[in-house]
């Protein structure tokens, strides 16, 4: 019940941003997808004049990729700021933490809401779009199953940025010293994961980022002075 109360509070605080991310991603994503479907309908009727071998052929839903990544990253960043930076700014940490709970419960509630938010706002719409695109015959090129998992990994990168921002928000060092290290590390992980490395390299990098940053979030909350 205590955990639920914390989750409800965190969820309510992040709800406007989740809704915004959902609207942006679903709205623009649906437009892009629909546009692609209409384009392909026209293409089916045309005589083929291009090269037959396409070594770097994009997936039919590749237009969604950058939108998915940016939305996940943006939502992760904003949620972390809302959950970890704003309480320091308006001095509500003490009010939140002075209650009959363990500190780790409060951390769990925040992380749970972050994962839930990314899943509901970005992950589930992505799943819907993929299922729509993967219907046989929707596009001339097949939509491969691995693209689905790549999309979810992008959602995971959004969580990486969330953790990096949380580490930076919780860090009590000056901004020109190590305060930005969490963000910088997360940015490095995201860059390397997107750097054309074949799978499972992005997966391994994401796992490393999760472990390194996740441990630090817990440890910083335990050692932080409020």
């Amino acid at each position, binding site marked *: 019940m205590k955990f639920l109360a914390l989750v409800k509070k965190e969820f309510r605080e992040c709800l406007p941003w989740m809704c915004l991310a959902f609207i942006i991603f679903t709205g623009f994503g649906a437009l892009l997808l629909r546009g692609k479907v209409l384009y392909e309908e026209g293409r*089916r*009727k*045309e*005589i*083929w004049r*291009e090269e*037959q*071998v*396409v*070594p*770097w*052929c*994009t*997936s039919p*839903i*590749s237009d969604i*990729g*950058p939108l998915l*990544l*940016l939305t996940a990253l943006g939502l992760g960043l904003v949620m972390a700021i809302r959950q970890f930076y704003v309480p320091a700014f308006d001095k509500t940490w003490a009010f939140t933490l002075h209650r009959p709970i363990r500190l*780790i419960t409060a951390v769990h509630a925040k992380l749970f809401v972050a994962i839930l938010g990314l899943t509901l706002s970005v992950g589930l719409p992505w799943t819907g779009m993929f299922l729509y695109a993967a*219907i*046989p*015959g*929707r*596009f*001339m*090129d*097949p939509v*491969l199953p*691995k*693209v689905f998992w*790549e999309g979810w990994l992008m959602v995971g990168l959004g969580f990486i940025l969330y953790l990096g921002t949380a580490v930076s928000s919780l860090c009590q*060092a000056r901004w020109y*010293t*190590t305060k930005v*290290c*969490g963000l*910088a*590390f997360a940015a*490095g992980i995201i*860059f*390397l994961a*997107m*750097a*054309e*490395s*074949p*799978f499972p*390299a*992005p997966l391994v990098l994401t796992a490393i980022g999760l*472990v*390194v*940053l996740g*441990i*630090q979030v*817990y*440890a*910083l909350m*335990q050692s932080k002075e409020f």
Partner: protein
Amino acid sequence: MTATKTIQRWARPAQILMILAICVVLVTICQLIVFQFTWEYTRRTFLESQPQNPVVSEADRAMKEISDSRKEFLPDGTVLLVTDTMEPDLLTRAKTIRVADANNHTLYEGSDKNPYSFISWSDEGPRYFETATSLTEVEGYYGGNADFSRMLCVRTLGPDLRWSGTWVYDLALGAFVGYNLDGRVTGYLGAQGLCLRKQEIQPFEKGLGLRRAKKAGAVNLTAVWISAHSAYLIDFEAIKVRQVFHSDDDRMRFVQISHWDDPNTGLYLPILAISTERGRGTIYIPDPERFIQIHVPPEWYWAVAATQSGVYLSRHRIVGYPQSHDHRAVSQWLLQNRYRPKQHISQLMKVQDDGDLRLISSFEWTQPGQVATSTVAWEQLPRWINHAFAVVSPLPFKYASIWGEDMYQTQSSKYLRHLVKPLFLLEIHGPSNLVITFVLVSLAFLHAWPRRTGWGWFVFWVILVLAFNLAGLLTYLAMNHTPVIRCSACGRRRGLLRPDCHACHSPLPVPQPRPTDLVFPAV
């Protein structure tokens, strides 16, 4: 509780790893930026002081003309020298050529449509990807657009020249998976040909290259799948696979394709030529199908042409060029011989049905050595600058540079190449690096001594600075910015993280009570 203790135990190492990675990257970036600016500055000053147009002799000029021209063979073995020239007219820019004999006497000068029927040789044709790394990179995120992974696709057309289906290469299966326009799987195309079940697939060996060899008159193309030990012709029209080469112990060197979709096939036949590192060659002519096994020593580079009157082979080599084709050996040889003249040999041969090669004609010429210009001299200059800025690099860079250079040469992902480039660009000079390391370790030691809370961490930080130099020192300072105060007993600086002074072991001073204090505890 156990989870909490585990987290606390691993939190500091995780933080060290994170900050160290960032510091190493930051230091390297700063080094490269300074290095680049300094390089540009020193290059400009040096260029201004060198003569721009060195004078060469008449004989050298003539030798250079012969060397720069294309050597074309006629079927009777005559060698002609062809030079491409351009009209100075800016509007038309029509291409003209000059044809000369072996002694560089002009025979023809005019448009490209010349009266000579040079033999048209095979070449490597359109390449779709070239290394195994390229093929696996297709599978990764596309960094340029922050996009999903790509697919290697071969589109197939129907008789009406409209899209009828797609073959997608599956890296895990090692075969092409066919899809029709309804999105249904139509079959699997592996090394053994078409099959309808996944279990029956015989995968292709890991691909190193894919070339186009579309048959004349066919709607769909034929592609050549090249791996380290095999080559396959994949006919997407007939949905068939034909293995044209395989060797268990010899590796592929190059594959050439010629005249497959040439509408004027009266003169030339389609041909596929495969060469291995040990000099074995296979010539494949599909119609009528025949294989000719030849042997050309590995120091020769060769091409073939199949006409109605027979199969010709032209080969070329530079005397002394490394046989191994290893990129390091080749770079070394080119560097050492840049200013020396080089002897070239080009030969025209006839390929017999049994694979023997009969020499028809041979032509030798000398390529003059490169004249040292101001730009060449510049390259030798800034090594001391490189050393000066590499001196704060981590020591492990020195040992990682060997791996880095290999990866830079073989990795085709431009992002990853840029990441490993600093490993071998920064030339770490051992003694200078050690001196700077000693200075930095001393600084870290002086900083850490009054702040130490235990010998374990103290030794760890010293070793970290020793190994990672400036990046290590920055990491140490970032994680140990604890304040120090003067001990009231001995006057030395002491850290606040420990309960007592490290020198005299006295605790923090207790405030002196005043006579006017009103301290009367309740209990």
